[in-house]
């Protein structure tokens, strides 16, 4: 561990993992925490619980704001365990001088998103701090959900299984980046920020046996695939051409030197199913997003690693993103 915390420790990638394991897991160590899933299974697996803090800058962006993000983020973590979001808490830390109107706008968009999930805020806290102590507004939400389908786990992937992505990737990261100061980009890109529970409910209703499920937030699709490959000790073989990426996202990546696979998403998830469920699962996904696709298969070629295959027959490893990619994206 380095002596001081740098922004790289918050990137959702390698440094972030190091921070969590070497400091937090070391002291908080317990069986539930160590499973390291999107949210924690509690009460004999009937309930799940998750927490997330939101520090995005700017607070308002194309297709969403910090409020929508704060509800989606936590509810999606619950949904990724096959659970229906039920109860949320909401803590806000506000910088003095912040506009009341903007605050209400944010809270209104939280309410709207809670309705999509069928969840309610049952407890909350507010703190106001002197100018400069936070950047305008930080929000923390914690949520509890009721498990609808159990057994979903990052460590359950087996040879021959298929991995699908629920829509085109990277639009949240690309939107935030193009909205940031210092980059003069005009773009009609919108964040993918969305509550995912309705889509997961549709998969459960269609009786798809969900093996693994994870939303590709910080660290993007790269981080999820690497986590799965490691947790299940399998090789994930990705067909590069099959990955859906919008032209504008690709353009921004080309210009700024990023990979869409590393960019954050706020309403895009990966789904692992048995080969025989692949077609039916894709049908359900395409109901919401035409761009959803089968992007990878599970093999044993390089255990614990993700490989990316090109259309001209070359292969390379796809690693966890390292370093500071986008400061404070969510």
């Amino acid at each position, binding site marked *: 561990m380095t002596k001081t915390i740098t922004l790289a420790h918050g990137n959702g990638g390698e440094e972030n993992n190091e921070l969590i394991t070497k400091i937090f897991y070391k002291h908080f160590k317990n069986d539930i925490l160590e499973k390291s899933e999107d949210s924690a299974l509690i009460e004999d697996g009937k309930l799940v619980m998750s927490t997330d803090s939101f520090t995005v800058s700017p607070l308002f962006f194309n297709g969403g704001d910090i409020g929508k993000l704060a509800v989606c983020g936590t509810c999606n973590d619950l949904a990724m365990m096959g659970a229906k979001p039920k109860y949320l808490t909401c803590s806000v830390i506000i910088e003095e001088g912040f506009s009341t109107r903007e605050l209400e706008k944010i809270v209104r968009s939280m309410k709207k998103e809670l309705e999509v999930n069928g969840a309610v805020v049952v407890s909350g806290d507010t703190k106001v701090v002197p100018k400069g102590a936070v950047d305008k507004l930080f929000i923390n939400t914690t949520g509890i959900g009721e498990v609808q389908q159990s057994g979903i786990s990052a460590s359950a992937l087996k040879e021959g299984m298929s991995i699908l992505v629920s829509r085109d990737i990277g639009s949240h990261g690309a939107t935030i980046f193009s909205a940031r100061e210092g980059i003069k980009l005009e773009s009609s890109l919108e964040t993918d920020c969305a509550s995912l529970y309705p889509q997961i409910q549709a998969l459960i209703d269609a009786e798809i046996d969900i093996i693994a499920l994870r939303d590709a937030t910080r660290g993007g699709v790269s981080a999820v695939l690497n986590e799965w490959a490691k947790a299940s000790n399998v090789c994930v073989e990705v067909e590069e051409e099959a990955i859906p990426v919008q032209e504008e996202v690709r353009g921004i990546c080309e210009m700024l030197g990023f990979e869409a696979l590393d960019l954050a998403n706020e309403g895009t998830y990966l789904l692992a199913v048995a080969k025989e469920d692949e077609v039916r699962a894709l049908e359900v996904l395409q109901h919401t997003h035409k761009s959803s696709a089968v992007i990878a298969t599970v093999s044993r070629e390089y255990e614990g*690693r993700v490989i990316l295959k090109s259309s001209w027959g070359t292969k390379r490893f796809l690693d966890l993103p390292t370093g500071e990619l986008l400061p404070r994206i969510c």
Partner: protein
Amino acid sequence: MRALELKNLYDDFRDGDTIKAYAKIIAQDAKKLKNPINIMEVCGGHTHTIMKFGLPQLLPNNINFIHGPGCPVCIMPKERIDHAYVLAMQEDVILVTLGDMIKVPGSNGSLQDARAKGADVRFVYSPMECLKIASENPTKTVVFFAIGFETTTPMTAVLVDQVIKQKVPNILFHINHVTVPEVMVELIDSRDEHVDAYNNRIDAFLGPSHVSVIAGSKIYEKFPKDYGRPVVVTGFEPVDMMQGISMIVKQFVEERSELEIQYKRVVNYKGNLTAQALIEKYFEKISLFRWRGLGNVPDSGLKLRDEFSEYNAEIVYKDILPIAEIEDHKLCICGDILRGMAKPQECTIFGTACKPTSPIGSCMVSSEGACSAYYKYGNLI
């Protein structure tokens, strides 16, 4: 006429069938080669493409790449990073630089570490943003830590031009611009006895092409003529690179040694004369620039001309900037890698003590460095 879209600039140049077709042509021509050929791609952007798109997997065994020193972040010696660190830690200074530079560790840490300790360090995409930062922070001094080859030098020159014309009182420059042809000469015509034994390893060059957008292809003329090393100025997409490689192989088959341009859509012989004039106006050569991993290379660096010394942070802050040269880690073999004498995986600390998150040697610090590209994209497959 249909408007040109961004995707036109890369889509066709990543076409799988075209790439495979070039692989076939290269394989056929390579059978006619008498000896294996080692091609140095000087530019870090090329190294990145080679590894990202897996090009070595498409080439016959008698064609090898030597990964050159063309990553401006990687070649920055530690003492100059220490300059940036010391400047950043001054209370009244905002240190501004380009992207990857903030990750490179000096002897006290990186600019990222300085920032975590409270220093005001910012990275920009365009140096012109310094003007805005300076006007918003009139009580601070903005130091632009300028890095890069011929490609980025004009952007710094424009900023210098604007600072002087607009009489901006609070922007200074720390110039670390370096030039490509001089280091290419150094690599094939090294004075170092140890290296001299290996100096024939580079048979041809893929010429850095964005450098040539500014400086023209003319800067490489002497290599085929005086040194017998063919040069093909090549673009950065995989189809560009496969075509460039095939042009080099053809030269060997036909026993030619010429300067050719593959990247004709943006490169010409003369280059951008306006940019060249602006560079000439504000900058002059320094007799020696120390490259990390390679040591002193004559005439390879630039500095602000003496008449603009009042804008030179190295002069304004000379009392606080460290002057001692700092050697690289003993186990690091970046110098050998940059000279084409070794591959990253031959280094004992590659991937163990030296990783992108904790780089020890220059080639690991930026995504364009050879070691970093090998680590990220996997040399195993």
